[in-house]
C-alpha cells in the first residue's frame, strides 16, 4: 500500500498531486487492487480569470490465477478530466474489462481484454455521450540463447468500437541484441505503429467529426567491437518515418483553419566511432555523425529539409595520480533547405565550433587546482540576400580557474574565478564606424564558498560572489574594439545551515542577499562619466524540513521561501513559495 500527498504554491499557481495504491492477496491465487489519483492545478490571473484543471482517475481490479499459465481478471476504471477556464469542459471515460492471459514464460505471454467503454463530454451547453465495445490484444515473445543473445517480438492491437469516436491502434516491435564474441555486439530495434482515430476538432462543439490516420516508427542498429584491448569502434544507424493524414467524416464543412494539414516526414542518419587507449594513462576518441530529414506537406509550400554533419574529437591524459588533462573539439554544421520556389526563401546554415581544455593538479591531499578554458563559436548564415544581413559570428571565450583547499577535515574552502568575453559580430557591420548590433559582453566573477562541519550532523555554508559585467558596441578599426555602454556590479551573499537534531529530522534554514548596481557610460566634455541607471536589492529567507524515519516507510519534505525585492525601476515585490510532499508505503 502506498500514499502520496503533494501540494505546492508558487506566486499565482496552486498544484495538488495525490495518489493511493492498494494491493491485497486472497490466498495464493487471487489479487485485488485499487489505484486512485488526483491532479489539480489552479492559476489565478490578474485578468480575473481562474484557470483550473482537474484530473481524477481510479481503477479497481481482481486477478485470479487459474493455473501457472492461465489467469483471468476484471477491471473497472474511470477517468475524469475537468477544465474550468473560459468555457467549462468536462470529460468522463469509463471502462469495464474482462481479461484472459496466457503466460508461457515471464517474458512470453498473450493477453486479451474485452469489455464495454462509455464516454461523456460536455463543454458549456453542448454535450454528447458515446458507448461501445472495446477489445485490447497484447502479446510478447522473447527468447534468450547462447551468451545472452535475445530476440523479442511484441505487438498490441486495440479496437474501440464506440459509436461516434471509434479508434483502431496497432503497434509491433522487434528487438534483437547479442554479443557475438567477447567485446563485440550488435543490436537491432524496429518499432512501427498505426493509429486510426476519430476526434472532435472543436472542443466546444460536437457537430464536426474528423479522422486522423497516423503511421510512425523507427529502425535502429547499434554495433560495436574492438581489435585487441587498445582499439575499439562503433557504428550506429537510425531511420524514422511518420505519416499523418486528416479527413472530415460527417458532411459539415471543415475549413483548413479547423482541420490540420497532413504530412510525411522521414529521417536517416549514422554515427561512426573510433577510439583507443594509450597504455594506462590516457585515450583518444573520434566520432563522425551524419543525419538528414525530409518533409512533405503535399500542396502546402512549407516543406523544410535538413542535413547535419558533426565531427567530435576527445583526448584525455592522466600521467600520474596528481594530474589530469582533457581536450575536446567539435565541429558541426546544420543546413536547412526550403523549396527554391518559396516566396520566403530561408535556406540557412548553423555552424558550431567548440574547443575545451581542462587541467587539474593535486598539490597535496588538502589542496588542488583546476583550470579550464573553453571556446564556443556559433555561425548563423542565411543564403538568401533577403536575410543574409543577419549573418553573424557569436564567439564566446571562458576561462575558469578554481582551487579547493581543505586545511582541516571540518573546513573546506572553494575559490572559483570566471572570466568571460562574448563577441557578437554581424557581417554587414564589419567596417562600419557606428555599428548597431555588433556587441561585446564581458564578465568577471569571483566566488568563495566556505563549508564548515564541526559535527557530523551539522554543516554550515557561507557563500559570497562578486561579479562585474560590462557591455557595449563593437567598433571595427582594423579589428573589433569595444565601447562600453553600461557596466553592472553585483554582490551576492548568503548562508545556509543544515542541522540534524535527530536521525530522522533535518532542518535547513538559509538567508540570501543580493545587490546589483548598473551604470550607464556617457560622454561629457570628452570624458566618460558613469551615471547610475538601476539598483536592485533582494533578500530571501528559506526553510526546509525533512522527516525520514529509519523504518523507511515515511518521507516528508516541507519547504518555504519568502522573497522581498526592490528595484529602482519598479515597486517593492514580496513573494512566497510553499511545497509539501508526503509519501508513505508499507
Amino acid at each position: 500500500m502506498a500514499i502520496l500527498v503533494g501540494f505546492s504554491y508558487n506566486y499565482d499557481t496552486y498544484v495538488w498531486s495525490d495518489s493511493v495504491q492498494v494491493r491485497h492477496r486472497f490466498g495464493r491465487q487471487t489479487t485485488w487492487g485499487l489505484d486512485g489519483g488526483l491532479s489539480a492545478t489552479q492559476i489565478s490571473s490578474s485578468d480575473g480569470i481562474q484557470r483550473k484543471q482537474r484530473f481524477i482517475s481510479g481503477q479497481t481490479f481482481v486477478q485470479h490465477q487459474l493455473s501457472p499459465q492461465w489467469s483471468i481478471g476484471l477491471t473497472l476504471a474511470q477517468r475524469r478530466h475537468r477544465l474550468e477556464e473560459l468555457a467549462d469542459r468536462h470529460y468522463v471515460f469509463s471502462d469495464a474489462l474482462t481479461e484472459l492471459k496466457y503466460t508461457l514464460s515471464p517474458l512470453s505471454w498473450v493477453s486479451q481484454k474485452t469489455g464495454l467503454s462509455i464516454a461523456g463530454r460536455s463543454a458549456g451547453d453542448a454535450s454528447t455521450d458515446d458507448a461501445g465495445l472495446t477489445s485490447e490484444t497484447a502479446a510478447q515473445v522473447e527468447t534468450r540463447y547462447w551468451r545472452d543473445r535475445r530476440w523479442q517480438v511484441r505487438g498490441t492491437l486495440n479496437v474501440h468500437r464506440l459509436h461516434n469516436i471509434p479508434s483502431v491502434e496497432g503497434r509491433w516491435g522487434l528487438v534483437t541484441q547479442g554479443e557475438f564474441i567477447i567485446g563485440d555486439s550488435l543490436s537491432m530495434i524496429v518499432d512501427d505503429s498505426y493509429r486510426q482515430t476519430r476526434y472532435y476538432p472543436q472542443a466546444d462543439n460536437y457537430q464536426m467529426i474528423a479522422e486522423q490516420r497516423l503511421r510512425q516508427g523507427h529502425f535502429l542498429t547499434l554495433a560495436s567491437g574492438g581489435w585487441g584491448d587498445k582499439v575499439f569502434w562503433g557504428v550506429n544507424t537510425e531511420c524514422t518515418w511518420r505519416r499523418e493524414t486528416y479527413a472530415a467524416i460527417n458532411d459539415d464543412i471543415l475549413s483548413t483553419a479547423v482541420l490540420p494539414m497532413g504530412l510525411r516526414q522521414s529521417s536517416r542518419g549514422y554515427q561512426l566511432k573510433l577510439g583507443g587507449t594509450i597504455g594506462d594513462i590516457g585515450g583518444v576518441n573520434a566520432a563522425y555523425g551524419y543525419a538528414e530529414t525530409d518533409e512533405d506537406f503535399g500542396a502546402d509550400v512549407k516543406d523544410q529539409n535538413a542535413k547535419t554533419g558533426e565531427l567530435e574529437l576527445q583526448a584525455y591524459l592522466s600521467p600520474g595520480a596528481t594530474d589530469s588533462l582533457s581536450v575536446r573539439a567539435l565541429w558541426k554544421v546544420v543546413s536547412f533547405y526550403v523549396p527554391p520556389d518559396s516566396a520566403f526563401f530561408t535556406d540557412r546554415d548553423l555552424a558550431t565550433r567548440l574547443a575545451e581544455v581542462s587541467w587539474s593538479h593535486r598539490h597535496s591531499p588538502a589542496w588542488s587546482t583546476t583550470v579550464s578554458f573553453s571556446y564556443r563559436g556559433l555561425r548563423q548564415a542565411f543564403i538568401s540576400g533577403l536575410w543574409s544581413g543577419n549573418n553573424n559570428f557569436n564567439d564566446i571565450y571562458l576561462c575558469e580557474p578554481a582551487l579547493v583547499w581543505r586545511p582541516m577535515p571540518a573546513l573546506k574552502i572553494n575559490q572559483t574565478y570566471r572570466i568571460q568575453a562574448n563577441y557578437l559580430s554581424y557581417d554587414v557591420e564589419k567596417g562600419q564606424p557606428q555599428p548597431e548590433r555588433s556587441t561585446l559582453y564581458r564578465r568577471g566573477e569571483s566566488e568563495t564558498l566556505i563549508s564548515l562541519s564541526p559535527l557530523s550532523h551539522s554543516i554550515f555554508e557561507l557563500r559570497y560572489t562578486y561579479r562585474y559585467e560590462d557591455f557595449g558596441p563593437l567598433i571595427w578599426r582594423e579589428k573589433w574594439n569595444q565601447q562600453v555602454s553600461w557596466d553592472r556590479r553585483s554582490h551576492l551573499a548568503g548562508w545556509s545551515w543544515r542541522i540534524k537534531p535527530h536521525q530522522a529530522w533535518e532542518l535547513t534554514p538559509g538567508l540570501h542577499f543580493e545587490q546589483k548596481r548598473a551604470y550607464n557610460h556617457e560622454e561629457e566634455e570628452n570624458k566618460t562619466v558613469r551615471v547610475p541607471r538601476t539598483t536592485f536589492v533582494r533578500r530571501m529567507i528559506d526553510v526546509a524540513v525533512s522527516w525520514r524515519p529509519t523504518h523507511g516507510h515515511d518521507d516528508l519534505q516541507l519547504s518555504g521561501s519568502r522573497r522581498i525585492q526592490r528595484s529602482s525601476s519598479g515597486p517593492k515585490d514580496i513573494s512566497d513559495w510553499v511545497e509539501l510532499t508526503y509519501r508513505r508505503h508499507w
Partner: protein
Amino acid sequence: MKSKIILFALAMLSIAAPLGGGCGKNPFSTRPSEDPLSTGGTYTDPVSADIALDNLFYAYNERNLGNFTRGLADNFTFTFDFLNITQPVGTTGWEETEESRIADNIFRAADTLILNWSVSQTDIEDDSSATYYRLYEITVITGGSPAETTVYLGESVFYLNVTEAARWVINRWDDRHRTAEQYSWADLKSRYR
C-alpha cells in the same frame, strides 16, 4: 573470426541501406551567402530578460526567422490551453525544432503580420530567471483574392533563463485563450503546423 566478419558486414549494410549508397556532410564550412539586401532586422544582444523579449517582438513583426530562433533555448517548450486546438490526441505543446519550423511556415505564408502586446501582470525577475505576462493581438493577412485577415487574441506567459554565456533565452512559452470564441497564438501556430 567468422562472427566478427558477419558483424562487420551487417553494420556496413545497415549504413548503406538507409542512405542509398552512403553520403555525408562537411562539418567544417557553411554554404556561401548572397550579398545582403537589407541590414537584417532589429536585434539586440539579449544580456537582460526584457531585451530577449523585445527581440522576439521585433522578430515576429519583421518575420525574421533568424532573430526569432536565436531567442529560444535548446530545451524550449511551447504549451497551451486546450480550448480550440484541433490536434486529436495528446497534443499539449511542442519543442524548439517544431517551434522554429512553425514560425518559418507562418512567416512564409503571411503577407502582413502585425503583433502588438501589453503587460498583463507584473513581471517576475530574479538573477537567473524571469516570467513575463503579455496580452497580445496578432493580425495576419494572407494572400489570395480577396485577402484573408485573421486576428488572434490571448495571453502568453514567457519563462526566460540565463544561459552559461550570460544570454537570456526563452525556455518556456505558455499560451492561453482570452475568450472561447477568439483564436489564440496557439491556434495560429497549429494552423501552420
